[in-house]
């Protein structure tokens, strides 16, 4: 591991003031420390933000304000999250292991990097790690990678489960930085790779996530489901966060569908949602909605299985949510 200096910030203003090129913020470290050990992340200085007073969860209007330093396990165990946002609690519980969730923070979960094998191996080219060096995944091992929104430069997926639920809940990410404070909506924090796969998010250098604010829970039934290669402690092949609100006459009043494991960002399935609204809730409408989204997929040879997997997951989850 490359040598670095360690400093602890007393508050968020001090953390931002300590930022300069070469500085990285340290949360729980469950991804960053590993990437440093692999030589993928090479900060000159770590500014530890894990003890900042950003560890509260409190009601915010009809919604909920979640501090960026809240541990994943505390988020999933919080009574208000379990009661009002069960889809979020389940998404968090479906990710990682008990030990990792005890360490990982909400802010760090959003900013974790892709687990693409080439990104994590410094002996290989990777446009995300070393812009312009190429993407071996396109010809190589891309079985777990993107089928939607990818580019010639990068086919990586974002690994977070939590972010998929936040994208479906229209969460707002509060950020502070050298340029002041701002609010970034979810989805929208994470970018598609385009020609700049080295940029995972729209955050500017030195910006620090301080909180995630959830609006009031959307009406209807909700569910997070995850398909993976083993029953626990594995990243999603495909996952879904779905909300379905059906009128008394059987018409879909509103819905939210977000997919994980299929793109460089949590993928809000707007085409599926548009097809669903006003339709008659049932398998035919759900299949048409899934098709409206997944017909846009551009799978690679070894991840084509994700397209029917996502289609089936959308239909099955909506059927579970339908009255």
């Amino acid at each position, binding site marked *: 591991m490359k*040598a670095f200096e360690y400093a602890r910030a007393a508050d968020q203003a001090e953390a931002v003031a300590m930022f300069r090129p070469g500085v990285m913020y340290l949360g729980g470290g469950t991804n960053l420390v590993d990437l440093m050990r692999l030589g993928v992340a090479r900060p000159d200085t*770590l500014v530890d933000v894990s003890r900042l007073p950003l560890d509260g969860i409190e009601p915010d209007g009809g919604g909920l304000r979640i501090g960026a330093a809240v541990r994943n396990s505390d988020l999933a165990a919080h*009574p208000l999250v379990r009661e009002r946002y069960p889809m979020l609690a389940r998404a968090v519980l479906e990710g990682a292991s008990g030990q990792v969730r005890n360490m990982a923070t909400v802010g760090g979960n959003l900013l974790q990097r892709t687990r693409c094998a080439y990104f994590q191996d410094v002996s290989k080219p990777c446009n995300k790690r070393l812009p312009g060096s190429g993407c071996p995944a396109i010809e190589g091992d891309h079985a777990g990678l993107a089928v939607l929104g990818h580019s010639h430069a990068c086919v990586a997926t974002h690994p977070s489960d939590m972010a998929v639920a936040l994208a479906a809940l229209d969460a707002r990410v509060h950020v502070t930085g050298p340029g002041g404070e701002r609010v970034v909506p979810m989805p929208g924090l994470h970018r598609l790779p385009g020609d700049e796969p080295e940029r995972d998010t729209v955050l500017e250098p030195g910006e620090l996530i301080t909180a995630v604010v959830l609006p009031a829970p959307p009406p209807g039934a909700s569910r997070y489901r995850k398909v993976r290669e083993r029953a626990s402690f594995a990243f999603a092949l495909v996952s879904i966060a779905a909300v379905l609100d059906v009128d008394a006459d059987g018409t879909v009043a509103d819905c939210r569908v977000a997919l994980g494991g299929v793109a460089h960002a949590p993928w809000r399935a707007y085409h599926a949602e548009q097809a669903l609204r006003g339709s008659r809730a049932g398998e035919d409408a759900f299949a048409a909605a899934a098709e409206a989204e997944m017909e846009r997929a551009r799978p690679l040879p070894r991840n084509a299985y994700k397209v029917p997997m996502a289609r089936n997951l959308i239909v099955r989850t909506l059927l579970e949510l339908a009255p």
Partner: protein
Amino acid sequence: MEITLTVNGVDRAIDVDPRVSLLDVLRERLGLTGSKKGCDHGQCGACTVLIDGRRALACLALAVAQEGRDVTTVEGLAGGEELHPLQAAFIEHDAFQCGYCTPGQLCSAVGMLAEHGPSAATEDLTADPELTAEEIRERMSGNLCRCGAYPNIVTAIAEVAG
């Protein structure tokens, strides 16, 4: 950097390079070799210790970031010659073969039994579920056992969970 930790009830002052993990401090500096280095990437759970009472991966914890924390390793579970109930149950139920993952399994199980709330195996997220075998398996999924002693590990933990 100079840091102070409480390890198994004893205050320790240690001068460490920022690169050093808590696991390496425990094993190489303090001679507490119970916590094991399996993968060193947070994927196997062999290095699991309790930090301020909560189970965590010592391989991914930078020692400098643990200033002032209270750390319990497998060496700190027993009360003198009296084994921790989980240690006794692991022996009683033959919950290991080679034993390499056992310190991590034990610390993880101690931390897990003190946790509240649902898991991914819990159907009703608003309830505090009973610790069925399925719940124990899900909650212990961060601890791998290459010998495959899982059935007996689950039995041992279930006995202590009551």
